[in-house]
């Protein structure tokens, strides 16, 4: 082969390698960046006056006087809208029956959007569900609703070969010649004055309970559930993993029995996470009945056996990386083996062991499949520390799935889902980052 071609091959080989690394970094960015930017939107957004009303009434946050003043400020514009609707209702009575029927269905969809924007229309019965008691709390959602109000979405399916195409018809055309035609330009012009959007920093998203199945409010219940489950799993798995690692590194003889134990460890590490869920259901709940049904305890136990192999491996590695001279010095001074382990080896290996523990904690916090059947519920309030033995809990990982795939208004509450994913990723990545930093410090220390 020509030298030039060989050179090209060599260069492109390097290029392929570098590209694959870059692609991985890119994949990380592509996944993380939209989630972070979407998640920040759950906390930092343009909140409308409805958001402030909700906060004051449901959580007692905010300044009542300022809010009252703003309500007074926005009220005239709202009254004008309602007056127009009333006027049209009166006008509707004068129409002939077919025309009346046609317009009353059209106006009712207008009314729906208006009450979605501004909250319940006065004179109508007070809605029971909280989601209908307030208007749109976020300005970008209000703009979407405004678009729905201004335009009717239609589908062009004239060409059967292709997928239907979306197009919009101005809604005002439907009401041409009636008194309601004036409503549309009026709302378009004055929506900002009716809703008074301002930049809002909604810290409560992380610390408040959710209202009406996450339509409003925060995600504290989920965060707390995740913490309970992950910490509970650590309480079981960490001591056990460290003890097992001590056995493997200091006591185990190289024989068949030990190698079986080691293969068991790697088998356990490879078991699919959903199978852990099945096992947790079949064993912890149906067989030994740690609780009557799903509970934090059962979930923690299931997660604990899932992260056990990781902890054992990390602890083994940490113990093996303690220099032999430490051990020899301690034995030479006359201490027993056990004393050497407890007073010399473990303290020296501790940072490494903790690193492994932190990574496992992150894994336990992020896993979903093992807790589906053992601990997670989709809606629920925060539970107290005393209830962990018996009651299930909402958890971030499970509720992200639930809100994104099964919630009746999944498209309406994308910001909540993004916020939850961001909260979960932050917990997990912060844990991992601290583990990475800790490990960097250890390797520096070992180098001297």
């Amino acid at each position: 082969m020509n030298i030039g071609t060989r050179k090209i091959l060599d260069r492109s080989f390097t290029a392929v390698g570098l590209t694959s690394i870059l692609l991985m970094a890119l994949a990380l960015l592509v996944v993380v960046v939209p989630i972070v930017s979407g998640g920040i939107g759950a906390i930092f957004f343009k909140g409308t006056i409805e958001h402030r009303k909700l906060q004051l009434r449901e959580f007692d946050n905010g300044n009542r006087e300022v809010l009252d003043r703003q309500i007074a400020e926005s009220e005239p514009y709202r009254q004008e809208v309602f007056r127009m609707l009333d006027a049209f209702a009166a006008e509707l009575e004068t129409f002939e029956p077919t025309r009346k029927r046609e317009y009353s269905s059209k106006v009712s969809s207008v009314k729906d959007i208006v009450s979605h924007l501004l909250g319940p229309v006065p004179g109508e019965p007070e809605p029971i569900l909280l989601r209908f008691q307030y208007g749109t709390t976020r300005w970008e959602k209000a703009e979407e609703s405004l678009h729905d109000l201004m335009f009717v979405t239609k589908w062009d399916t004239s060409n059967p070969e292709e997928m239907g195409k979306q197009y919009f018809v101005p809604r005002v055309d439907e009401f041409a010649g009636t008194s309601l035609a004036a409503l549309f330009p009026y709302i378009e012009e004055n929506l900002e004055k009716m809703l008074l959007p301002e930049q809002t920093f909604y810290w409560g998203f992380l610390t408040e309970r959710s209202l009406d199945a996450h339509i409003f409010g925060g995600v504290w219940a989920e965060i707390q559930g995740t913490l309970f489950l992950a910490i509970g799993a650590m309480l079981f798995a960490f001591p056990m993993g460290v003890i097992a690692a001590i056995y493997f590194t200091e006591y185990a003889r190289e024989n068949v029995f030990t190698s079986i134990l080691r293969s068991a460890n790697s088998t356990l590490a490879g078991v699919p996470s959903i199978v852990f869920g099945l096992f947790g259901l079949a064993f912890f709940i149906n067989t030994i009945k740690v609780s009557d049904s799903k509970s934090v305890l059962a979930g923690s136990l299931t997660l604990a056996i899932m992260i056990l192999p990781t902890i054992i491996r990390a602890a083994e590695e940490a113990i093996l990386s303690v220099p032999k001279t430490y051990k020899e010095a301690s034995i030479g001074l006359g201490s027993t083996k056990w004393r050497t382990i407890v007073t010399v080896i473990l303290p020296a290996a501790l940072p490494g062991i903790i690193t492994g523990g932190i990574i496992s904690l992150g894994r336990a916090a992020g896993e979903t499949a093992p807790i589906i059947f053992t601990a997670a519920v989709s809606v629920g309030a925060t539970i107290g520390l005393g209830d962990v033995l018996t009651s299930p809990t909402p958890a971030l990982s499970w509720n992200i799935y639930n809100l994104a795939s099964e919630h009746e208004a999944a498209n309406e509450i994308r910001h909540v889902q993004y916020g939850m994913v961001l909260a979960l990723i932050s917990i997990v990545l912060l844990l991992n980052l601290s583990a990475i930093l800790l490990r960097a410090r250890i390797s520096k220390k070992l180098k001297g």
Partner: protein
Amino acid sequence: MADAALDGGKKSDAFVISRAKLRRQRIAKFLGEGFLLAIASFVAIIVLFIFYFVAVDAIPFFQQRGFAEFFTSTSWYPADEPGEFGALAIIFGSAMVTIGSALIAVPLGISAAICLSDVLPFSVRQYAKPVIEMLAAIPSVAYGFFALVILAPLLQNHGGPILMWAWWLIAGPFVLLLVVVAGDLLASAVGGESESDVLRNVFTAVLGVVAVLFLYWVGKTLFAIQILTGTNALNVSLILSFMALPTIVSVSEDSLQAVGRELREGSYALGATRAETIVKTVLPAASSGIIAAVILGIMRALGETMVVWMASGNSSHIPDPWFNYLDSIRTLTATIAGDMGEADQVTGSARYHVLFAMGLLLLCFSFVGNFISERIVVRQRKILAGE
């Protein structure tokens, strides 16, 4: 003698070991080691328990319905009376996304591992490693959310252009490289020893034109594709490959590192380039470790639940044609996760037990995969140590 020490017991016994104390120490040591052993064997007990308890709930299904229907039928209607439990399409779906993700993750992962172990300087490697760890640390449900909420609409609305650009960016450089190499080989085959630059350039140019036409034609075909649903096997395979990558990269990198300097230096001394050294010397020596890495990565993709549950479309049928990655599929893991909620109330029914049968199937796959990869790693370590 210990007896003598016992007789002289009036002295301070700090330096004297009495028989009783010796016994106590021995018992303590025995108990202590026993305790450690008990904890250490706990893992093995758990593994046995997992197999036992999953199997115990899986066996009633096979007793009630036999094996034939589960493995050969594609009609999956567990909620009907009487239910139908043909899982072939579901098993096929699992295989499909596993293979799809392996097709993406294996080449990418191995070249990334080579890059980490042989190409990048140490200082850069230190920054690349955390990227891989972060990729591994992101929870599966976050990947699933990304696949469902961001990637699926993108594929559905701009599927054709995305496929075309992916084709151009990925296949383009490779095809052009192939052209250069093939031109060179052809020239030396035709011209014999007297390699002439003119001949090579002519061959390369002709092949280049053909290649560009080919690239353009495939790109145009891909551009015209309309993806009916964004929650499909392609979407899931792509995301699963992200999740399998960290395992593949780190395990293959370990085995590439284990090959040692001597082989590499020997190859360089014979005049090989870095690419030739790696492809002809290092990779064969590390091949078994890389196979182990691939198996572990595939197992990760096969056992993954949340991504496939959220973004595979969950429709239990074999795509038409069977390699159509743009169709929705359903996998074993997603079926277990999705159906247990309804089957849970009817504990004891075939509908409940069939999910454990699926779990058992997954468990057996993962056990076999793990066993093989572990054997391979042990053997490689022995061979490398023996040399």
